[in-house]
């Protein structure tokens, strides 16, 4: 009891997002099934999971676009029910789907956002200049948003989400469909924002992205959180060394805590095999791979 209290008071200020038993049911589909999760202040947190795992639904509930059917969310100490305008000021959102107004220019898209957030004109103009420079779109400011490439649209969406100086940024697959250069550019943007004190919660299907970018990752499957920790911790959990054996066309993976055990196991095999260090992708496949009978 004593210990609980001490922990709570130590961790209290650090946690900026708290989900408890958060759930969403669409008809018969349990999209999110009771998530408990705490996101620390100023961390980059990645949500991973196969298609339909419930990542977008979770982000939509956290950003108050979808009402949960169970559980609760605290953002920066605010409830996400009742008067939402205080919470809405704290968060910026980059949704999974491109939702810029394509009939407006780059500049007008930002201006619209500024107006919706009731930013005074002078501050708005200055912020727009600043952000356009930040996402390297200054020279495209007066082009229609429709005319931008996919990566530029993404960057514009990031700039738009940052307009009103949010402390928390939600990004749903910020780099989906981008080429390696564009993706790295966005990683740099995320790191830069984070180093200036922004908390970032992102989802991704690119596991190397989570590995290089996120301080902690959570792996979701069928609406549940099935693993949580730093990429290193998760790799330790399944075993740091992998032995891949080719078995009648199917690759079989076995995980081991150390090289000796792996070598010991491999020594007994005659098949083609590869011994290597585990990466986050192995963790992902091991935990979410829906093997028959599993």
């Amino acid at each position: 009891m004593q210990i609980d209290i001490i922990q709570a008071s130590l961790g209290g200020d650090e946690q900026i997002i708290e989900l408890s038993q958060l759930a969403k049911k669409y008809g018969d589909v349990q999209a999110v099934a009771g998530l408990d999760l705490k996101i620390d202040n100023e961390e980059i947190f990645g949500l991973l999971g196969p298609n339909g795992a419930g990542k977008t639904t979770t982000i939509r509930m956290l950003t108050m676009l979808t009402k949960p059917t169970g559980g609760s969310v605290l953002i920066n100490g605010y409830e996400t029910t009742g008067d939402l305008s205080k919470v809405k000021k704290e968060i910026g959102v980059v949704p999974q789907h491109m939702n810029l107004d394509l009939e407006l220019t780059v500049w007008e898209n930002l201006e619209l956002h500024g107006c919706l957030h009731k930013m005074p004109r002078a501050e708005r103009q200055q912020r727009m200049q600043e952000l356009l420079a930040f996402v390297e779109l200054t020279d495209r400011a007066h082009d229609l948003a429709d005319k931008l490439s996919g990566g530029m649209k993404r960057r514009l969406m990031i700039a738009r989400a940052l307009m009103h100086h949010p402390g928390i940024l939600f990004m749903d697959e910020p780099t989906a469909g981008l080429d390696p250069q564009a993706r790295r550019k966005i990683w740099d943007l995320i790191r830069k924002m984070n180093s200036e004190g922004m908390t970032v919660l992102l989802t991704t299907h690119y596991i190397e992205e989570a590995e290089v970018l996120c301080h902690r990752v959570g792996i979701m499957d069928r609406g549940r959180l099935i693993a949580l920790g730093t990429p290193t911790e998760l790799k330790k959990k399944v075993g740091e060394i992998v032995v891949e054996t080719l078995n009648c066309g199917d690759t079989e993976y076995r995980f081991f805590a150390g090289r000796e055990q792996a070598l010991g196991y491999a020594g007994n095999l005659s098949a083609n095999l590869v011994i290597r260090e585990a990466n986050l992708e192995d963790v992902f496949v091991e935990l979410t791979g829906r093997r028959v009978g599993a």
Partner: protein
Amino acid sequence: MKRTLGKFFTSRLVGPLLYLVAFGWGMGRSIQMNGGNYMEFIVPGIVALSAMNTSFSAVGVNLNMSRLYYKTLDEYLLAPISSSALVLGKVLAGTVRGLVDSLIILALAFLFGTHLVVNGWFLMVVLLTCLLFSALGVVAAMVVNSHEDMANFSTFVILPMSFLCGTFFSPDRLPKVFGYIIDVLPLTHASYLLRALASGQGIIPLSLAVLVVYATVFFAAGVVAVLKVR
């Protein structure tokens, strides 16, 4: 907005213009209606129906697309603005479009040589009609969950009103049962009011009250629908 404005108005105006030409100019010259020229009878009706059509589809179709397809509505839902402010904004935008279209019809009717009294009350009623159907557009956009159903809503609700609600003929020529139904529909009262005012008679308080009540109810329903949409 400005860039698509021209295209928007021209396409929305084709329907009402055709009515004006076909029913008014084409066959209308030979018909006498309640002692007056048929043109003078139908222009207020066409103004009412184009106010309805333009405002409804400007808000309803666009907002529905922006909610379901483009997801641009999320941008508004994420902003710290109240849902009544959001509804008001959309309703006013629709109203402006409806007003402009109605005024263009009126201007053309004058060019055709129709004699109508257009006073402050007349414009007030047009404005109220636009507000009412813009608000209905918000409700429909929030409640209807597919683009096809939105088209169905237009076909089964808006289109019949365009033809039956005292726009092209007086509904007392219809069987009694229809008459009762038509009497509770908002567009009927809009066209009655506009016709009375255009022919120099005074305002019909009951019809005005009906419009005000509808506008208020639809606006409130719009606010609730926006709150419920998340």
